[in-house]
């Protein structure tokens, strides 16, 4: 089975602090990590490989420093890693990103299963998975929480998480799936994996190496345009009660009443 995992390198938000004076993000010295959701996708891919054989190729798009994240993916069991990196890819919105990733997947000869996290924690869009599937003219399913079974004839039964429960779906490969955290418990790299990652050759492809229309890449290929970035207004100081428990609770409830929020006994419904 050929499995491709798309990963994104993102800033580690556990490191991100807000500058209290300017109310902006402090990005200096923030470590770069593999998008946490993509780590689950990677683990699932490695588990599929262990069960059914095949290869796990990891693919990313981004600046040269994404190399470190791709090596990390190798250390936990991916076979090969590919980086799409070119100034021409910069400024891509989800449409142009998916277009570029799909071209990379085609260059790899396609895949039976394409996995990625449900969304990246910096952009939070969750759009790239479905858009990659459309570019490859194959189906997709988002928010997968379990791959129940996978048969030799290329059918699988999966569970997709929804707001009010989940649906069980029988799919036929090839397919793009995005996964949620519940799907597995990712492993830590083994010593051998780490050694392997160190010496692994990471393939880097620029725009000229993949079959693409230059007009569809990066900023030029992006219909959406960010026209303004701003930090949301800092919440004005709330009312904090620090007295005795009984009084504090009473004060809180009276404040809620004042705010017109009916709670508790006699809420009049």
């Amino acid at each position, binding site marked *: 089975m050929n499995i491709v995992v798309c990963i994104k390198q993102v800033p580690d938000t556990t490191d991100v602090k807000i500058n209290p004076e300017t109310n902006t993000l402090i990005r200096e010295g923030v470590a770069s990590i593999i998008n946490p959701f993509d780590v689950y996708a990677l683990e699932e891919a490695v588990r599929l490989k262990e069960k059914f054989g095949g290869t796990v190729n990891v693919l990313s798009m981004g600046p040269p420093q994404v190399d470190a994240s791709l090596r990390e993916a190798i250390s936990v069991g991916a076979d090969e890693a590919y980086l799409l990196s070119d100034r021409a890819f910069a400024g891509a919105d989800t449409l142009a990103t998916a277009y570029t990733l799909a071209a990379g997947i085609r260059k790899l000869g396609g895949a039976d299963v394409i996995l990625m996290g449900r969304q990246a924690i910096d952009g939070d869009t969750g759009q790239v998975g479905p858009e990659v599937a459309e570019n490859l003219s194959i189906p997709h399913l988002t928010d997968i929480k379990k791959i129940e079974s996978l048969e030799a004839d290329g059918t699988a039964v999966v569970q997709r998480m929804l707001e009010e429960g989940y649906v069980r779906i029988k799919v*036929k490969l090839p397919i793009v799936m995005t996964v949620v955290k519940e799907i597995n418990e990712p492993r830590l790299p083994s010593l051998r994996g780490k050694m392997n990652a160190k010496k692994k050759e990471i393939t880097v492809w620029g725009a000229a190496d993949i079959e693409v229309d230059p007009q569809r890449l990066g900023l030029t290929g992006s219909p959406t345009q960010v026209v303004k970035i701003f930090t949301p207004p800092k919440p004005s100081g709330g009312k904090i009660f620090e007295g005795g428990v009984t009084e504090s609770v009473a004060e809180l409830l009276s404040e809620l009443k004042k705010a017109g929020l009916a709670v508790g006994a006699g809420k009049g419904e």
Partner: protein
Amino acid sequence: MASSIKVILDKCIGCGLCIRACPFAAITLVDKKAVINEKCTFCGACVDACKKYQAIVITRETFAAHDVSAYSGIAVFAENHGGQLASVVPEIIGAALELKKSLDAPLAAVLVGHNVKKLAEELLEYGVDEVWMRDDNGIGDFSEDVQTEVVADILKEKKPAIFLGGGTVIGRSLLPKVASRIGTGLTADCTELEIDPDTKFLKQTRPAFGGNIMATILCQNHRPQMATVRHKVMKAAPKTGNKGGRIVHLDHIPVPAPTYEVLEFVEEKTDTVNIVEADFIVSGGRGIKDPKNFALLHDLAKELDAAVGASRAAVDAGWIPYSHQVGQTGKTVNPKIYIACGISGAIQHLAGMKSSDIIIAINSDRAAPIFDVAHFGIVGDLFEVVPELIKQLKG
């Protein structure tokens, strides 16, 4: 010519304002001049910061656009399953009706499914002008693959200038595929929509980076301008009765064969789990200390008719299932009241609940960051405060 970003060296005085404005740490100073590196995403924050000196210029070229003048009006996706409209639908209609005021263009709902005539009439009562309906027994509940094809074909025929969907699991999966099919832009999970008074473009504002920055996004040269809208943020349209709206049957739109088979829908609708829909949420974190103590939160939740949420710490400790998790790697919630008990308020947790109408923090540590975003807070031991709260609520 490709798009580019350039620093005009003569104009750059090396003040560093752009460095502070850049959300991507993509600018450094070299020999007292700004240098933009490959982390740049062309967001334009530096251009705004450099208004005074105008030393940074973005040249932008967009790929061949379709004829935008052929598109007009607003359409919304009427997501439905189990014979009911998704609860986000009246909210999107509410947002669209606001946009309609500044556009003076008709509003349509795109309704696809089986036996959905009743829903079409309901949509008209919310004030849409037309329902573009494709009713066929080949369009099953959760058959998102089939629905995607049908919706894309309807949009290609009807050519609305704006198309909005819910920021639900289905909406955030179906709309990207449709946008990619049509070759237009899509903005995810918007919390604010507005028509620019001069250009008439749809200004789409959304949180990014876990809600720490907001971005306003335009889709100027492609149509429809598409967005998904975060659940429970927009004010729902009230049912005011059908005022001359009509149902347009689109029976000629083909219904393709499904690519996958929906075996079953397993509902997990307990009293306390559906945190996405809840108006009130009682949430517990590390301070709960023991899984047994969640019973206390359930008691409070019962008093308030609330759902029970949790921080990642509580979920990772195995105290409560993942479906309750609020935050960046869990669910985003927007209740009227969010009560955080024993939650310190890590940035990832705040990302999932910051836009709640009212945040109440109960924590023994006065320095916990949760108090920075709380509208009301009680500093104290939650094992004393919560029982007292239940007692006083019982009145």
